[in-house]
């Protein structure tokens, strides 16, 4: 059963990555050509998923849109991990000091804001666009990783092998990098998967309100927003990108759950 979760998640995620990757090499039709006479066609042999209100092939739009979602979510997770994990490790290594206080309280401060609202604020100030969406989502990933790595690292500092390393004269930075980080990597991978799926949702949300990737770059959120008034006329135009978002986020969450079950030492020990 647990294996099934992992497999389902992994398959859905792989499909998502494969589709996004393939869009670099091939799409059924170009996505920047407007062909009005062929608009709002239902799925057929030439256009497998039909066409949208500009006569663009929905499958091609989905493929390129997957790339947009993927790029935004990955970079946002990398930003979050790249800045958040070192901050968390520094805080844990200097636990109780003023540095720890500053880092932890700043985390609390950022956590106190609803993330999507602040993301909207950031993009509204700096202008809409994929880059600003990445920054906005990335900023909110920082405290998530900082908190997680601090919490996971703190108990490790009391363990014998860390004591031994300290007695051997290793600096705090080296211990954090060589001993702490490998021991919390499992947790970070699981959290990364979850944040990745949240990033995809956030990108879709920002695009839905018009603050994500700008046209003509396809984006799942904007495909949804643009098709909602046509839902009575051509339901597939809204349902298809909606399903794509649901399946991708579901897949990533299942993968995250499955990975946690396999990787988290605490869960593993309770089961055996």
């Amino acid at each position, binding site marked *: 059963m647990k294996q099934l979760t992992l497999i389902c998640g992994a398959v859905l995620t792989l499909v998502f990555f494969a589709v996004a990757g393939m869009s670099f090499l091939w799409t059924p039709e170009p996505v*920047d050509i407007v062909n009005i006479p062929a608009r709002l066609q239902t799925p057929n042999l030439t256009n497998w998923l039909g066409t949208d*209100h500009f006569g663009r092939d929905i499958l091609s739009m989905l493929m390129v849109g997957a790339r947009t979602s993927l790029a935004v979510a990955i970079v946002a997770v990398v930003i979050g991990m790249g800045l958040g994990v070192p901050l968390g490790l520094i805080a844990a290594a200097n636990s109780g000091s003023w540095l720890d206080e500053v880092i932890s309280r700043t985390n609390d401060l950022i956590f106190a804001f609803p993330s999507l609202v602040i993301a909207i604020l950031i993009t509204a100030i700096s202008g809409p666009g994929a880059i600003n969406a990445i920054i906005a989502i990335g900023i909110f990933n920082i405290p998530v990783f900082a908190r997680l790595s601090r919490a996971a690292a703190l108990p490790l500092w009391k363990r014998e092998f860390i004591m031994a390393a300290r007695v051997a004269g290793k600096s705090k930075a080296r211990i954090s990098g060589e001993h702490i980080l490998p021991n919390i990597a499992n947790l970070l991978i699981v959290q990364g998967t979850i944040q990745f799926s949240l990033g995809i949702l956030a990108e879709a949300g920002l695009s839905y309100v018009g603050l994500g990737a700008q*046209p003509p770059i396809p984006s799942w959120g904007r495909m949804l927003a643009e098709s*909602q*008034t046509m839902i009575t*006329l051509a339901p597939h135009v809204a349902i298809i990108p909606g399903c794509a978002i649901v399946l991708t986020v579901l897949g990533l969450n299942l993968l995250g759950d499955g990975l946690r079950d396999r990787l988290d030492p605490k869960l593993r020990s309770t089961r055996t």
Partner: protein
Amino acid sequence: MTLIRNSFLASCLFASAAFAQQTDVTVAIQLEPPHLDPTSAAAGAIDSVLYTNVFEGLTKFTKTGAVVPALAKSWDVSEDGLTYTFHLNEGVTFHDGSAMDAEDVKFSLDRARAEDSTNAQKALFAQIAEVTVVDPVTVEITLSELNGNLPFNLAWGDAVIVAPESADTNTQTPVGTGPFAFDTWVQGDRIELVQFDAYWGEKPALTAATFKFISDPTAAFSATMAQDVDAFVGFPAPENIAIFEADPRFQVINGSTEGETILSTNNKMPPFDNVKVREAVAHAIDRQAIIDGAMFGQGTPIGTHFAPHNPDYMDFTASSAYDPELSKKLLAEAGFADGFTTTLKLPPPSYARRGGEIIAAQLRAVGIETEITNLEWAQWLEEVFRGKDYGLTIVSHTEPFDIGIYARPDYYFQYDNPEFQDLMAELTATTDPAKRSELLATAQETIAKDYVNGYLFQLGVATIADANLQGLWPDQPTQAVDLTGVSWK
């Protein structure tokens, strides 16, 4: 059995009697007015609710755009054309009970044209030198120079007559002379009007009216479908109109507006300062694709900045016909064989957002790359309209007869042509209809041949109404929802 049948019949009778007695109406429009004083803001939504319903001017527009007497029952023009004498209707009262006389007319016009006036269309009153009260029902307007357009100008919503006592509070509680008096305004939802008992003219068939504001196209569709509103004027989702056409409960009225929808071009920003580049843009655009794709077929192609339903309209669509090859050739001649990149800033309406994506694809086909930015109205006014920081934008100019904006070099598309400015000055001073038509034809040709902007289409307006509602304006010669002629069948 008989009893049952009788009571059934009776209930039928009551039902139909109750139906025939319906004298109120709920009309939805998309935008809510920011406040309720038509003499101090440009927002068209104010006129939509109040024009002719609550406020009246000396003259008014009919549903065809013709100018007819309103508060003034007639007027005379002096020999030299510089003095207009308006004869007012007698027995006109404001909704607060005070009488409307020549003093109120003088006050309203002087207030609108004053130095510190906040009127959005002060140019309408520019030629007025003096307003004199002859007697309580006669007003004399003296002009500083000839203006054959005066009765037309005075029909605008910006020229309605207000009372000195209520002029400052009209923004929240408007007091006019119209057949409907303002009742309540629930901000964010609706405005209610009731029939004014002491109205001077013919009483309307309706006794009460509610304006609802529904900006979201999806919500607009649901509210209209569920018959929460009796009519939706300016239905915002053209893609759904076919559904209403197929439904016998509704009637769909397709009309025209004064909205020339144009690809506004920043004439001072390189490379658009080169007429060859502007011509290339014009030939790169396939109007029909935009009308079909963005408006689902609602709209009439235009080739210049003039409404096609106007008798003086000239068709210049052929001089900017869709011809991508010619467009590429012109770009090459202008030194942009490899194309260039510019900005395309789009305000919220779907004609702009959808039209923008289609135009971007069409321009890309001839080598012009556009960076699309979607803006809210406030940002658009700030960046594009006032800041002139844009290459291209799409907007519908909904003011009637507004070709005069091309004579303003500081206007946001920054078209500076002294010849055109002289032409407009001459037009203002001309009263002879034949000569005016001739000048207007030249004006239309000048801006069409200068390719000042990309002329796309005349914005259509769709009204979806209950099948039993009659008398709504099909067209929008000025932004208004005139309820005076509306009734239930």
